[in-house]
């Protein structure tokens, strides 16, 4: 539950961050920002004592200045998702880079930016901007998302009215050591429409992002996100989504490296027969802290949700999973599944999990599972007895462990891209 009264220090911290709020904007945006401001002040910024921050220290995400991080050095050979030939929209340190971007024209998709739409008095995004974020504040409070809604000056506004002929890629790059990025994106998928959004990044020393998606009845939204590799940025990324009747949302995130990543998701299945699949693979070696905090809320009957989260951790890396399947009384015939697993490759790593079920309807089938452990020694021996060297056998088993999450990517081209990156990461970090 959201705290009714924030502790004074948490409220003061929120007030000081809010001092940077952008002025002006059309009536719709001012109202949304003001409401977010009130939400945040009621909660305060997160602290270690908050239930959903017990495993992740938010200090680097709440501090006044972004902790410095050098821009990433290495990059995997190919530009992310190049094979899918997406329409590329590039943000460098949170600033739109028109020169590096493709012309924002795509049949079936109206592409705008928040900064452009802000001064207008009326805009379709009015019904969406901050709205799902506000609903997503319970049962798990998400103060950093409210902070973003109050402060973000730019982001993409996509209105999808047909089947987008190619994916849209949100490409983020980092140039400055201290860039503090805050983008807020809104996507409306009209009934029956379909879009694939590809994200790469993180693209800042610190990123506090919100993506709000409304998938209309029968619509489809695919989301594949790549965080990393070899970057020093801190990330708090939020996905807020509403899924309409018979609509589908499928989201996958690969996180490779990074000192602190908090991926939050709130998805509400609001129409009968909807489907939401959320998956993530996280790979960390050394100074790595990765947190998935996910709520799947079943509001309408007959919906299916799936959460598949896998983490591979070594040399003191830490993984956190906090996931909840929340089934309201009217959401009969719910099918909810959740699995969170960690593979610890050495003694120093750790996995902390809180996989919750909160269920108020009786005709449901919900389950969750969680396992933590090392590589299965019997499988390792079996592979070696067939002549596969130890390092290769371990790499194979790591990839096998991640396979269930990667299998959630429907598009084979994108899945192949992700598999290649996984394989490369495992190869770089084996032994």
């Amino acid at each position, binding site marked *: 539950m959201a705290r009714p009264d924030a502790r004074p220090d948490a409220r003061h911290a929120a007030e000081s961050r809010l001092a940077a709020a952008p002025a002006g904007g059309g009536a719709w945006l001012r109202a949304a920002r003001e409401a977010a401001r009130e939400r945040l002040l009621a909660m305060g910024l997160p602290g270690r004592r908050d239930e959903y921050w017990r495993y992740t220290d938010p200090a680097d995400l709440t501090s006044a200045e972004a902790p410095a991080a050098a821009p990433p050095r290495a990059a995997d050979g190919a530009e992310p998702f190049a094979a899918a030939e997406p329409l590329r929209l590039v943000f460098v340190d949170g600033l739109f880079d028109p020169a590096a971007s493709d012309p924002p024209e795509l049949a079936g998709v109206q592409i705008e930016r928040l900064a452009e739409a802000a001064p207008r008095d009326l805009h379709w995004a009015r019904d969406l901007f901050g709205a799902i974020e506000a609903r997503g504040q319970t049962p798990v409070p998400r103060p950093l998302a409210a902070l973003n809604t109050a402060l973000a000056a730019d982001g993409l506004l996509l209105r999808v009215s047909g089947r987008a002929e190619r994916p849209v890629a949100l490409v983020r790059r980092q140039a400055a050591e201290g860039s503090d990025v805050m983008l807020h994106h809104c996507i409306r998928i009209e009934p029956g429409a379909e879009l694939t959004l590809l994200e790469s990044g993180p693209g800042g020393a610190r990123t506090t992002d919100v993506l709000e998606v409304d998938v209309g009845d029968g619509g489809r939204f695919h989301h594949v996100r790549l965080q990393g590799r070899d970057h020093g940025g801190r990330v708090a990324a939020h996905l807020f989504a509403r899924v309409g009747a018979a609509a589908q949302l499928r989201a996958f995130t690969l996180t490779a490296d990074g000192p602190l990543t908090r991926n939050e998701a709130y998805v509400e299945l609001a129409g009968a027969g909807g489907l939401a699949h959320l998956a993530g693979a996280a790979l960390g070696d050394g100074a790595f802290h990765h947190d998935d905090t996910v709520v799947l809320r079943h509001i309408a009957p007959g919906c299916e949700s799936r959460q598949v989260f896998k983490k591979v951790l070594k040399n003191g890396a830490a993984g956190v999973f906090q996931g909840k399947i929340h089934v309201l009384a009217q959401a009969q015939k719910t099918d909810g599944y959740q699995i969170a697993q960690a593979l610890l490759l050495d003694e120093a790593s750790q996995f902390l999990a809180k996989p919750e079920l909160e269920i108020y309807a009786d005709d449901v089938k919900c389950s969750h599972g969680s396992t933590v452990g090392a590589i299965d*020694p*019997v*499988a390792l*021996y*079996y*592979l*070696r*007895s*067939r*002549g*596969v*060297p*130890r390092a*290769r*056998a371990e790499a*194979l*088993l790591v*990839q*096998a*462990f*991640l*396979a*269930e999450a990667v299998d959630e990517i429907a598009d084979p081209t994108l899945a192949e891209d992700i598999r290649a990156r996984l394989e490369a990461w495992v190869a770089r970090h084996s032994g």
Partner: protein
Amino acid sequence: MLEIRNLHVELEDGGTPILKGVNLAVKGGEVHAIMGPNGSGKSTLSYVLSGRDGYVVTQGSATLDGADLLAMAPEERAAAGLFLAFQYPVEIPGVGNMTFLRTALNAQRKARGEAEVSAADFLKLVRAKAKALAIDAEMLRRPVNVGFSGGEKKRNEILQMAVLEPKLCILDETDSGLDVDAMKLVADGVNALRDAGRGFVVITHYQRLLDHIRPDIVHIMADGRIVRTGGPELALEVESNGYAGILAEVA
């Protein structure tokens, strides 16, 4: 080819002695059967030869073509030509059967300084071998042994053997849990691999597998030792009289 001399082995955990001086010499082209009652150490012998953790060799040696098996990692033993068909093949969710086989084949070839097999050649090779064992494409697509029936797992072991073409094959209770038809398939697969350069050690509790895979030499193992060695007629003796008679005679 395989030379085992005075092999003594105990459990790492607790130090219980299991093998108490095993001697065995298998030459190329020979099929040896090792029979014996439960708990006699037959499976332990196969695990120790293939390098499974949990056992300590306290005395003795085992060599394959003169190379010290016991000093090698499991994968080195495989590359050297040793193959164990497991009594309980391991399930590995997430690893495709084809990926597994190809990785194993190429790793062994690489270790031996041979060129890797191309994807196309590999596919052709596996399809041909699989057909003989009645393994269909669907089974090849599935993860290693996951959702396989007992018979399918054993056939999959023989398929691996056929693809990897080892010098020395150890079959650990390959007949257990098989019906007659499945046993015939497995035996045909093994017989197809018999040639002058390849040795076999067939570990079994019952004689019936030996009707299909005719051994040259039969050993009876009891309490960690080979207590009797003879021709195929020894297996028939076990079949009609059980182990009790032989063991009493030895004791």
